[in-house]
C-alpha cells in the first residue's frame, strides 16, 4: 500500500476554499492540470456514487467515483475507476480545516493505492507534486498570501 500526503495553509476562510473545491465536477475551474470534466449519466455532482470523467491537459483520461462528501466536515473522498496510471485500489481524500486564530485554512490531500513496488516512488511523487501540491498552489495563487 503506497500513501501520499500533502498539506498546505491557504490564506482564506475554510468556507471560501470549500466553496471553490466542493464541486466534484469543478476541477477544470480551479485545478490547472485538468482540461475538462463531466459527470456521467447527468447526475448532480454532489450525489454520492456519481462518476466524473475528465481529461488532464496532456490528454490522459481518468474516471473517478465520489465515495463521500461532507459540507459539515468539509471533506471529499473518491476512488479511481479508470486511469492510465499503473495502480489499483486508489482512494483519495481532500479535507479542509479552519485555522481558528486567523482567517486561514489547513488543507490536506491524501491518497492510498496498490502498485508494483518499483513504480511506487514515481507514482507517489507524481501524484503528490502534480495533482495535490499543484492544486494547493493554484488555490494559494487564487486566494493570495500574506
Amino acid at each position, binding site marked *: 500500500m503506497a500513501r501520499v500526503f500533502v*498539506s*498546505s495553509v491557504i490564506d482564506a476562510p475554510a468556507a471560501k476554499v470549500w466553496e471553490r473545491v466542493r464541486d466534484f465536477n469543478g476541477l477544470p475551474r480551479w485545478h490547472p492540470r485538468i482540461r475538462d470534466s463531466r459527470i456521467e449519466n447527468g447526475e448532480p455532482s454532489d450525489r454520492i456514487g456519481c462518476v466524473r470523467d475528465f481529461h488532464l491537459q496532456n490528454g490522459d483520461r481518468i474516471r473517478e467515483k465520489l465515495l463521500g462528501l461532507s459540507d459539515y466536515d468539509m471533506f471529499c473522498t473518491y476512488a479511481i475507476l479508470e486511469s492510465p496510471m499503473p495502480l489499483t485500489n486508489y482512494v483519495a481524500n481532500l479535507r479542509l480545516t479552519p485555522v*481558528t486564530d486567523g482567517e486561514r485554512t489547513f488543507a490536506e490531500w491524501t491518497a492510498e493505492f496498490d502498485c508494483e513496488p518499483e513504480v511506487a516512488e514515481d507514482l507517489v511523487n507524481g501524484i503528490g507534486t502534480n495533482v495535490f501540491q499543484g492544486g494547493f498552489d493554484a488555490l494559494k495563487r487564487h486566494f493570495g498570501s500574506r
Partner: protein
Amino acid sequence: MVKIVKSTVLEAPVEAVWEVLRDFNGHDRWHPAVADSQIERGQPFDRVGCVRRFHLADGSELREQLLTLSDMDMAFSYCLLDTPVPLLNYVAHVRLTPVTDGDLTFWEWQSRFDTPAGEEAALAAMVGEGIYETGFAAVRRHMGLAARAADA
C-alpha cells in the same frame, strides 16, 4: 454540551512541536497558567492511563488522566478527573499535522464538556482563550518562534 475547537499554525517542524507536547507532565514548563505538575504514583508520563496532578498559579489543584497517546498520529487525549471549576465530562484532544509545503505544523486543540446552566459562555472563553490560545502563544515563546501579531 459545549464544544471548543482552536487551531493555529506554528512555524516549526512537526517533530519539534511534538517533542514539547507529548510530555503529558511538561505543561508547567511552557503554559503560564500551570505552576507545577507531577505524574501520580511515579508513573512514566507516556503511559496511557497515567494521571497528572497540577496546580494553577492561584493554588487550585487539578487532576487529568491521559486517555490516548499516539506518536504515529502525533495526538493525545485526556480528561479532567478533579477540578475546582465546574467543567463536567471534560475530554480534550490535541493533534499535530505536518504542513508539508512549508515544514510547518498545524495544531488543533479541542474539547467537549458540560457546565452548569448559564456558565457556558464564561467557561468556553476560559478554556478556549485562557487555556488553548494562551497555550499556543506560550509554546511559540517556549520554542523561540515569532509571536503572531495578535499575541505580540
